[in-house]
């Protein structure tokens, strides 16, 4: 015999006044709160979130207290354009309406719609820009030391001017050390990171981390770009969760929907890295930067280097967006072999740009086919079309030829465009976009190489 505890949504009549606001209608009910539309005395439109009230039992109220306190405290922080703007917090003092008496009311800016509603009608025309703004909001939150904890399309408000901002900070918590604690969620399991399923529960709740928000952003971005489809297949949340866990266990590959544009795929793939450790290599700030690149349509980014032998943990991820080429490189260290020639030997008058807090300079070499390395162990046809000079990090060479070979000992890289740095590190880039107007390469467009024996193919940039 299942028991219903008889909790019903707070019913607030149209015309009801609280603070300086007059209720005009119901927006939505979710979790422990009910949200109403309201208008201020000066005509300002607002959303009023009613939390609690006398209908809640003492016990339920106790459970809620912490959530309310956090959301209220958070809403009083400095405003940011990518976070929903709070107006005021008040408590209903109306003993004649016991069901409302004592309820906490958060008044905040009212969105025109939500990302969830936009997605329900297909891929939004400006989905990519919206995602950039969501990622910016997340980067701001994380930079301020918070974890959102409940990112999903229904918590992304779209304003009348079309801009997006993050809302619903009920599970938002301040990070202590590497993680925060939040009450176990009542929510859609589709946005929970895989580690949630094995995370143990203490009396403070479940550990939440910024990397969990990054996962949720990956799911949200996939939905926005694939017309609402989740990145994991299945008709039910249970089936999708099972598919997700098969992927994180290494039994299935990640298969993003074909509708997701090429330039977003590596961003989403990195957001959906299967465990917290790997995902934490992609902080929200870097994801926001790469989202911005992808949305600009100019650059293509890739990540994840692969070693033929003895894989070593990637040292850093560098995304470089430059006048000519957009390249992101996963650096892998090679622990033997002689140092390469210095990139500084090549003259360069390009501007430095700042990406991901790195000063990067792209220096094309305008003599295609210049054999930079003539040493036998540098490979038989290692020719470069430019270098990337990264302040504080190794300089990088960009190889020219399809399936150039770079050899060292018995290890080798065979990729269309590869990188060899002058501090003895190397990696590869399976996707490189050379935008038109290059002095060094006749072809514009994107080239991708799948696996070692797959021919590189050209992908039109959308």
């Amino acid at each position, binding site marked *: 015999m299942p028991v219903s505890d008889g909790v019903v949504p707070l019913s607030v009549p149209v015309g009801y006044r609280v603070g300086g606001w007059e209720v005009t209608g119901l927006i939505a009910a979710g979790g422990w709160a009910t949200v109403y539309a309201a208008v201020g005395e000066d005509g300002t439109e607002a959303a009023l979130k009613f939390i609690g009230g006398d209908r809640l039992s003492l016990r*339920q109220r106790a459970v809620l207290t912490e959530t309310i306190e956090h959301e209220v405290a958070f809403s009083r922080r400095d405003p940011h354009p990518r976070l929903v703007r709070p107006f005021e917090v008040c408590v209903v003092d109306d003993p004649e309406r016991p069901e409302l008496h004592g309820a906490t009311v958060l008044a905040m800016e009212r969105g025109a719609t939500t990302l969830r509603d936009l997605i329900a009608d297909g891929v939004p025309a400006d989905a990519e820009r919206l995602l950039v703004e969501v990622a910016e909001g997340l980067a701001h939150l994380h930079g301020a030391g918070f974890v959102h904890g409940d990112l999903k399309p*229904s918590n992304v408000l779209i304003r009348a001017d079309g801009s997006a901002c993050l809302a619903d900070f009920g599970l938002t918590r301040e990070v202590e050390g590497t993680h925060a604690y939040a009450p176990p969620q009542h929510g859609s399991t589709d946005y929970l990171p895989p580690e949630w399923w094995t995370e143990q529960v203490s009396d403070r709740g479940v550990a939440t981390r910024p990397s969990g928000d990054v996962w949720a952003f990956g799911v949200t971005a996939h939905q926005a770009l694939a017309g609402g489809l989740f990145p994991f297949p299945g008709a039910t949340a249970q089936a999708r969760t099972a598919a997700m*866990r098969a992927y994180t266990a290494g039994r299935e590959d990640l298969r993003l929907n074909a509708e997701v544009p090429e330039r977003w795929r590596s961003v989403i793939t990195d957001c959906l890295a299967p465990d917290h450790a790997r995902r934490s290599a992609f902080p929200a700030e870097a994801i926001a930067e790469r989202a911005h690149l992808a949305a600009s349509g100019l650059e293509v980014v890739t990540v994840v280097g692969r070693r033929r032998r003895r894989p070593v943990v990637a040292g850093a991820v560098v995304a470089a967006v430059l006048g000519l080429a957009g390249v992101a490189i996963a650096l892998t260290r090679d622990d033997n072999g002689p140092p390469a020639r210095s990139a500084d030997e090549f003259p360069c008058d390009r501007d430095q740009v700042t990406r991901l807090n790195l000063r990067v300079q792209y220096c094309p070499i305008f003599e295609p086919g210049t054999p930079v390395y003539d040493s036998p162990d540098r490979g038989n046809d290692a020719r470069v079309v430019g270098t990337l000079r990264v302040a504080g990090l190794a300089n990088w060479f960009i190889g020219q030829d399809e399936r150039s070979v770079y050899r060292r000992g018995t290890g080798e890289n065979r990729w269309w465009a590869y990188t060899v740095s002058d501090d003895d590190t190397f990696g590869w880039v399976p996707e490189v976009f050379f935008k038109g107007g290059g002095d060094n390469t006749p072809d514009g467009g994107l080239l991708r190489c799948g696996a070692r024996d797959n021919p590189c193919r050209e992908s039109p940039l959308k």
Partner: protein
Amino acid sequence: MEADGSTVLVQVPAPPGQGPPLVVHLRPGDVATFGRGAPDRPVDVPLRHDGVSRLAGEIRAAEDHWLLSNLSRHATLVVDNPEGAGEYLRIAPRRLAAPIPFEFARVSLPVAEGEAVFLVFAPQHTYADEEMLERPGGELTTAAFPLDETAKYFLVLLALCEPRLRDSTSVAVPTVAEVIERLAPLQGFGALTPSAVNYHIDYLATTKLRIKQRAGIDDSQRLEWKRDALVATALRFGLVGEQHLRLLPSRTRLSARTSSER
């Protein structure tokens, strides 16, 4: 039972006095074969009974439930819910991947003498978040913890939490003996043993609520600590509430008799 991401647990009772039961953990997609086995044909879940065929069937964890394949030519498998009101399923010979809806299931293989049974648990069944039902415009969401309010373990949890639900200043957590006494008037609880109660507590703490284990305490302290931690977590996150108290037998003898006669 560990929080290792498994969604299905298979448990084979050991013969009396022969150590702990064999437990096999399955994650979604994992398969475990069962049967008598043979040196050249090992099975994941060995059933030591001559009447059982070498490869009797297989269990596949799927989503939040599991699928049972009967690989016998002639023998029907019977799956029943030991906590249910006699619900059972018959899985015909050669039936593949039959979905089993029980959180607790007892799989019985037909043998001439004695019994060949094992248990299968599916602790990750999903439930809708109660507060989200029947709400206008609300998304249908799932409860954070998959608790079946009709299961025995839920009543054990409720009995543990009852003193604090009735009086929030109370610090007492009932002992196992008190839980047994409290639940005894309920149908099906008359023969509840201390080890069964401890089993439910362990299942709740490690599998259902994934409560963080405390290191550095001995076994007797751990049992007591586990009860305390269960109550603290369940109350803090609202997993049990006053509204559930009516599932317990009334506290007066008179009405207890009335409810048991009903």
